């Protein structure tokens, strides 16, 4: 590294050389060094090269400008401090001037450098916006070259992701309409960036999300969910998630446009982290109201969620799937029944009990189980849980039984024959606790002899069958 610092000292005077090719090649070399490693980038900054680059950026021809912007980008991408150093030497104004240049390559390099600077935190983004970059970026998006469009879209996405004010600035420059038009473009990488930009804008507030929706993205975004590129699908699902999470009306809009079906198909066809935004989107839609949750169930949303829960290896995806199932099933007994019929409750229970699963997964599985169980009246699904559940879950299960059994005679008979009553008797509960009350309610549904029989022997079961 010491030798490399020496290299910086050697390269620096070459930047001022008379022959333009040498200048350009020197800048190129600096850029490649800086992009390799962040210590080298720091060495570039410490070697006082940046002010020189910035000065000559405004004067030289387009190849030099491209190389200089490349160096700035390479330095700025490593850490916020380096990006701050770039901002402090006044590079932003010159980069913004480069954005007005005729050559699309120069614009692309300048936009890329601005994007990497704005990516780190909101102060740097604000600095980029204050330098007047946003309207020029919106103009860049309208240029015919695809690479330039990609970079401009990714820069807008990086700017708007930090705070609602920045997103509002981007929207005020009229970016949404152009971004919405570009969703139809066949290029996959461009679609990725455009969808990411729209989702970063929409995620901050209801008004921004409504603005994005008003740009008439809706049936078009669904075609992106069927694209062959994984990340386009992921970003499309992210966009629908950011829109759906704000209000029930927006979720309703998405449901009416058939978005739920598209997202479900998308989940079914992908594997891994690409599924995560789709799962979360279903969870948000179902969380708003019971009608929407019923819409998710009717669109056959539960089987893919169950397969996600079972198949995926990553804990955070499983946690998201558990959360989404909890949101679907928690509204009314109908919903809980739909979830229980899919035989997912034992899986949730095992996830909760598993010591290897992370904290987050355990907490989410437990909450989902609790929510579903509090409304579940589908007894065949509850039976298997009686045997394995820990006391805090068991309380809810037994509570549900105590609510249903007094009114339904067939269920009572089934309960006895499947050994449920036996299991209930074996539960030890403190007298006066809620669990004991539930057990008493259940025991009161049956005649005395049967209950006593159970307390004594398993032969009592046969007696019941005979009677």
């Amino acid at each position, binding site marked *: 590294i010491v030798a490399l610092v020496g290299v910086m000292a050697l390269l620096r005077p070459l930047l001022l050389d008379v022959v333009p090719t040498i200048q350009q*090649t020197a800048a190129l070399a600096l850029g490649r060094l800086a992009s390799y490693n962040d210590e080298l980038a720091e060495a570039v900054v410490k070697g006082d090269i940046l002010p020189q680059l910035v000065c000559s950026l405004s004067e030289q021809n387009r190849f030099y400008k491209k190389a200089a912007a490349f160096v700035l980008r390479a330095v700025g991408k490593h850490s916020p401090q380096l990006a701050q150093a770039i901002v402090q030497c006044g590079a932003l104004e010159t980069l913004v001037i480069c954005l007005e240049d005729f050559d699309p*390559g120069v614009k692309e390099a300048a936009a890329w450098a601005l994007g990497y600077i704005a990516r780190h935190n909101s102060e740097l983004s604000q600095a980029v916006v204050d330098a007047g970059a946003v309207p020029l970026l919106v103009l860049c998006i309208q240029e015919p070259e695809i*690479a330039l469009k990609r970079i401009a879209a990714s820069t807008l996405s990086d700017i708007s992701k930090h705070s609602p004010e920045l997103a509002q600035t981007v929207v005020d420059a009229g970016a949404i309409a152009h971004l919405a038009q570009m969703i139809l473009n066949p290029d996959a990488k461009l679609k990725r960036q455009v969808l990411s930009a729209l989702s970063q804008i929409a995620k901050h507030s209801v008004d921004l999300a409504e603005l994005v929706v008003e740009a008439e993205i809706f049936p078009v975004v*669904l075609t992106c969910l069927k694209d062959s590129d994984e990340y386009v699908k992921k970003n499309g699902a992210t966009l629908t998630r950011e829109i759906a999470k704000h209000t029930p009306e927006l979720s309703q809009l998405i449901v009416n446009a*058939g978005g*739920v*079906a598209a997202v479900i198909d998308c989940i079914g066809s992908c594997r891994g982290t690409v599924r995560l935004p789709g799962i979360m989107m279903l969870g948000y839609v179902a969380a708003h109201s019971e009608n929407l949750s019923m819409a998710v169930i009717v669109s056959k949303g539960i089987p893919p969620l169950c397969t996600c829960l079972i198949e995926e290896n990553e804990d955070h995806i499983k946690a998201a799937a558990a959360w989404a199932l909890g949101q679907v099933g928690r509204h009314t007994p109908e919903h809980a029944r739909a979830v229980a019929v899919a035989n997912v409750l034992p899986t949730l229970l095992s996830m909760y009990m598993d010591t290897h699963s992370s904290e987050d997964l355990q907490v989410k599985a437990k909450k989902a189980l609790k929510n579903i169980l509090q409304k579940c009246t589908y007894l065949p699904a509850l039976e298997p849980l009686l045997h394995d559940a820990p006391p805090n879950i068991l309380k809810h299960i037994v509570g549900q039984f105590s609510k249903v059994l007094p009114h339904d005679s067939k269920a009572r008979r089934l309960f006895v024959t499947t050994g449920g009553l036996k299991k209930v008797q074996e539960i030890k509960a403190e007298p006066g606790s809620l669990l004991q009350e539930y057990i008493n309610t259940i025991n009161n549904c049956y005649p005395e002899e049967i209950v006593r029989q159970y307390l004594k022997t398993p032969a009592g079961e046969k007696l019941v069958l005979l009677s």
Partner: protein
Amino acid sequence: MLTSNVTFLFSISTIKIFTTFCIFRSVDEYRKKEYKAAVKIQSWFRGCRVRAYIRYLNNMIIIIQKWWRGYQGRRYFRKMVETAYFIMKMNFYNEMAVRIQKRWRGYYVRKYTHNYYALKKYLEAISVNNEIVRKELNEYAEMKEKEKEKKDLEKKEKEKEHQARKMHYLLSTEQIAGIYNSPFSKSADPMELLLRKSKPLSHSQQPAKNHLICELCDRSNCTRSPTFPAAQPLPPIGRQKPQGPFRDAAEVLRQRYKPLEPTLRVAASINSLEKAREEIKREEWRNRVHDNEFLPFSSYHKNEKYDPSIHRSGKYGQETYGVKHFREVQPKKWIADKDFQTVLPSIVLFERFGKTYSRTGQIV
């Protein structure tokens, strides 16, 4: 003597007086007794009379009070009965109102707020819509797949053709069979057929760099070598320079094809002045309200008195006539001191204001 006479006389008189006094006294006592008795009798009798009178008055008063209290009691009772009746009626009405409201609210909620059938229809509509969306998306995906396949196929074909053109020399001749035309096989290899079809590749015609390929290569690291920008387009090299003091070809061409920049005087047409005048006239004709010329003032209207409008004839500007009152009032011209009495026929509907419903509710 005199005194003794006097005393004797006096004593005789006194004795006389005394005896008469005694006589009178006994009579007087008797008289007093009688008097007292008479007084007693009279007083007792008067007492009786007064008592009888008082008794009589008492009885009369009792009768009056009895009647009055009876009357009050009956009035109170009537009031009580009316209130009880009113309360009973209101309870009845309330019950009926509750029944109506119950039915209405159930109907309304079931029809509009929690409409089960609408919800069912909505969910069915959603599943139908989902089916449509899924179908369309599948079609779209298939279309994309097909396009991709087609593109791949075309690319392969192009590559093959390019290869064939490059290896044109491998074509088989009459004498020597080429690689792809084995004498042992019955028909020629497809490559052989391609070779036969293709034209030989000329060296000067470099295949144009495919822009698609350019896109795929990384422009990020500025890997292209920088080239010098050309200052101006050079004239074609092949042309021979004409001998003699001729000017440079490029300069000549530039001058020959310089675009015309006429001065303003040249660019203006000859009759532009007349045209401009006519234009002005047309515009004025267009903007006029009517075509009658102004007539001169005649003395026809000389003696007409100016009639101020109502707004102007009032003292302080806004007259209340037409706004606040609609009739002129001149009290000095009135015969009597009073104004007309407004005796209008009553409007039947307005008479019934506040009285359209039954009066049973107004008892309380």
